[in-house]
């Protein structure tokens, strides 16, 4: 028996106006105008699939419930490292490094659902909880349809060896080398075949067969499906499939095109988590992942879904977007345009890997110290307690600061220092339980920072070493409040 114990998600705060994209390309491709609707989610310059996954996982797990995770599955086709386990970075950031197994799942837009199926198998075997996190930040060519339809986002599901909030009734998977698109090794962008063929030969044949097989396996009537999570950006495909299978059209879940966009290998899980937010006990939830074959999973919400904290991060992050109407900024953030960064950006950013390993708790897990003599919290941890009235030697126990609420003590907005998004905001933040950190700020609005402002710590890209292709992560302070959709400051 396997069930979803907890679920969560994260959509980055920035929402790029599709009109801004379309307007930029109108000179060459006026036909894109039809897609100038709403906004798509985009990563801030310091976000990537790993950082989004950490946020989704934190949203899923809440505080103080990490100890029993036996395995972490990370699904993405856009993970920052080809060889350095991305799931391992996430595990360290969640402070489960060294305890849990970890696996990166990639290679297809089915990666999210395939990771879910693999994890379910492991949980059934080991009877231990497994965390499945998916995140996607697809790199798309300027003026491509994918640029408009895609969105960046992440979802997380904690599976456990009991029913939890939603019991897994059945799963089915079929690999078919149907190459609707591909991205060769070392290539930046996807190469996409004709939509009509993808629809007729791909979706309309492969998906119904897989769903039918699953429903037969589970002994569930199509008409009983309450939530049908089927990511597909092609028009009318989802309706046609539902109709052909006898699944109620009312069960079709929102594709989240508005405000988010298709999050690629993460989208099935994003839609699943979004459905779980709405699900009532007994609801049947069907999840489909399409990509060189098809994965199908069927869940049934239990009574325990009532007790789950809702809404999860998907709805909450959807509600707190900030509209960005500057397309150039998106190009710059994603290194899609050669931009003058100034000489200050030229410093060597080599990361000493031996030091990173030695300090991984501090740098990836934001683990500081708590003095067992005087109780003083401090970051970073040190051999001698910082409290001038204590100064005890070797007295500090590990203390994670990641979930400590913080407040701004002092700050500035710096136009001199190099930042991919000037000005660089940073300042001293003071943690409510004690301790402080001169921290970079992220996701702040110009003119909105004040002394005393509530902040929360978030795992972000500190710097990218373009010379060597390394990404350096650390924690930053972000406004803790959840402001409603804010207008772009252009």
């Amino acid at each position: 028996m396997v069930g979803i114990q907890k679920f969560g998600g994260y959509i980055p705060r920035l929402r790029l106006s599709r009109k801004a994209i379309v307007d930029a390309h109108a000179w060459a491709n006026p036909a894109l105008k039809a897609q100038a609707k709403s906004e798509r989610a985009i990563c801030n310059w310091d976000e990537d699939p790993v950082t989004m996954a950490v946020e989704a996982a934190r949203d899923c797990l809440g505080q103080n419930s990490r100890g029993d995770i036996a395995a972490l599955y990370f699904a993405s086709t856009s993970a920052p490292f080809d060889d350095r386990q991305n799931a391992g970075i996430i595990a360290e950031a969640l402070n489960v490094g060294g305890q849990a197994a970890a696996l990166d799942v990639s290679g297809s837009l089915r990666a999210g659902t395939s990771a879910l199926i693999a994890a379910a198998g492991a949980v059934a075997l080991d009877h231990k909880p497994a965390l499945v996190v998916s995140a996607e930040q697809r790199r798309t060519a300027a003026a491509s349809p994918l640029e408009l339809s895609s969105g960046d986002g992440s979802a997380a599901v904690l599976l456990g060896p009991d029913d939890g909030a939603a019991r897994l009734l059945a799963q089915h998977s079929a690999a078919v080398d149907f190459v609707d698109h591909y991205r060769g090794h070392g290539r930046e962008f996807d190469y996409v075949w004709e939509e009509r063929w993808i629809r007729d030969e791909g979706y309309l044949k492969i998906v119904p067969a897989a769903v039918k097989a699953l429903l037969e396996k589970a002994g569930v009537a199509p008409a009983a499906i309450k939530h049908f999570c089927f990511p597909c950006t092609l028009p009318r495909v989802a309706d046609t499939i539902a109709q052909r299978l006898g699944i109620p059209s009312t069960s079709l879940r929102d594709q989240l095109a508005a405000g988010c966009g298709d999050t690629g290998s993460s989208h099935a899980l994003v839609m699943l988590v979004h459905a779980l937010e709405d699900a009532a006990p007994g609801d049947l939830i069907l999840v489909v992942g399409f990509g060189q074959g098809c994965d199908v999973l069927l869940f049934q919400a239990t009574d325990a879904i009532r007790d789950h904290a809702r809404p999860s991060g998907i709805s909450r992050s959807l509600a707190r977007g900030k509209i960005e109407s500057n397309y150039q900024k998106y190009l710059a953030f994603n290194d899609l345009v050669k931009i003058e960064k100034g000489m200050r950006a030229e410093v060597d950013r080599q990361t000493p890997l031996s030091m990173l390993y030695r300090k991984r708790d501090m740098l990836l897990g934001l683990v500081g110290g708590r003095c067992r003599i005087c109780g003083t919290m401090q970051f970073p941890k040190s051999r001698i307690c910082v409290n001038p009235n204590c100064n005890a030697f070797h007295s500090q126990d590990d203390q994670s600061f990641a979930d400590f609420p913080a407040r701004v003590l002092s700050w500035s907005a710096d136009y001199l220092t190099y930042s991919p998004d000037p000005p660089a905001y940073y300042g001293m933040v003071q943690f409510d339980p004690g301790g402080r950190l001169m921290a970079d700020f992220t996701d702040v609005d110009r003119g909105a920072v004040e002394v005393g402002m509530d902040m929360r710590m978030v795992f972000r890209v500190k710097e990218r070493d373009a010379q060597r292709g390394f990404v350096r992560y650390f924690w930053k302070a972000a406004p803790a409040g959840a402001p409603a959709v804010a207008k772009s400051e252009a």
Partner: protein
Amino acid sequence: MASGIRDKVAIQGMGCSRFGERWDADAEDLIVEAYEEALGDAGIETKQIEAAWFATAIEEQHVGKSGVPLAVALRLPYIPVTRVENYCASGSEAFRGATYAVASGACDIALALGCEKLKDTGYGGLPQRSRGALNSMYWANVSAPGSFAQLAAAYRAKHGMEAGDLKRAMAHISVKSHDNGSRNPKAHLKNKISMEQVLNAAMVAEPLGLYDCCGVSDGAACAIVTTPEIARGLGKRDLISVKALQLAVSNGVEAQHNSWDGSYFATTRIAAKRAYHEAGVDDPRKEIDLVEAHDCFSVTELVTMEDLAISPEGGAPRDVMDGFFDAEGTIPCQIDGGLKCFGHPIGASGLRMIYEVYLQMQGRAGPRQRRKEAARGLVHNLGGFPHQNVCSIAIVGRHGA
């Protein structure tokens, strides 16, 4: 209890190069320019110098490491030469080394020389460099203006001050320093500016605009020190001697412990208290005649006046606006233009400040000479960031005063 440095060491001679964008000069040229003046002032020869301290902070941009570049530039006769670095307080550190060597009796005549050649970086402002391997992985993306600017946010929060009022007090400081710098032939910036220019200047790090920030300059300054007895023997009259030399270095409390509120310099307050004790100063507002403060940013100068206990806490903006620190005020601050306009070649700055006090006390400061005679001058030299720094305070004055 230690008896301290008061009146144990006299300044035999000082020199200072012209500061500024010295496109014409290498570090070696600047070193020799300052040294020749000091040697002439001291009335000695190189062979009489028994030990030297050399201050550079950003040596990778010019001379490289060690004491060798100074020894080579001046052809010092195989004497001990020590290179010191302590952020922007490096110049004071060299002075401390030389002064302590003489006070200890280890040598009779010692040299302190500081130099920085910064204008070979290709861009304005201080060079962007590593902060140390681990620091680079977790420190915020701080620049000097961005860290010092935070004083303003914390100061306003503490004293409930309107942004505009603080900005105007800061602007007055910069207008005053430009005014002073205009009378200093060696200054980097000699232009007078108006309040409007300061208030409307481009933002560097909120709330610090362009004119709230000091210049980044090339330059060198040096001091030759000896005992008062030897100085008299060498023909010196009206000796200027060292009254106090104190250094306070942050130990992580401001950066890590919630006892500091971000609005002042913990180090300056401690160093000032110790320096006043060492110099026998009871009431600095009455007993200090001149101040050279580390005005890297206007807001630094403002809060420092409180940290030095010259202005009461929360009272510096009023003193500033009243002209208390103007050239004609009660205690002129940066009568030479300060870091703001004389310039800030890091390793040279502490020595440049002592140089100005030394000139003023001898009536040799030319068009910027203060009419009222000065008995004691205070030199405040700071390095690092408000939350983690090195503060040096030197008091020099008339021998016996």
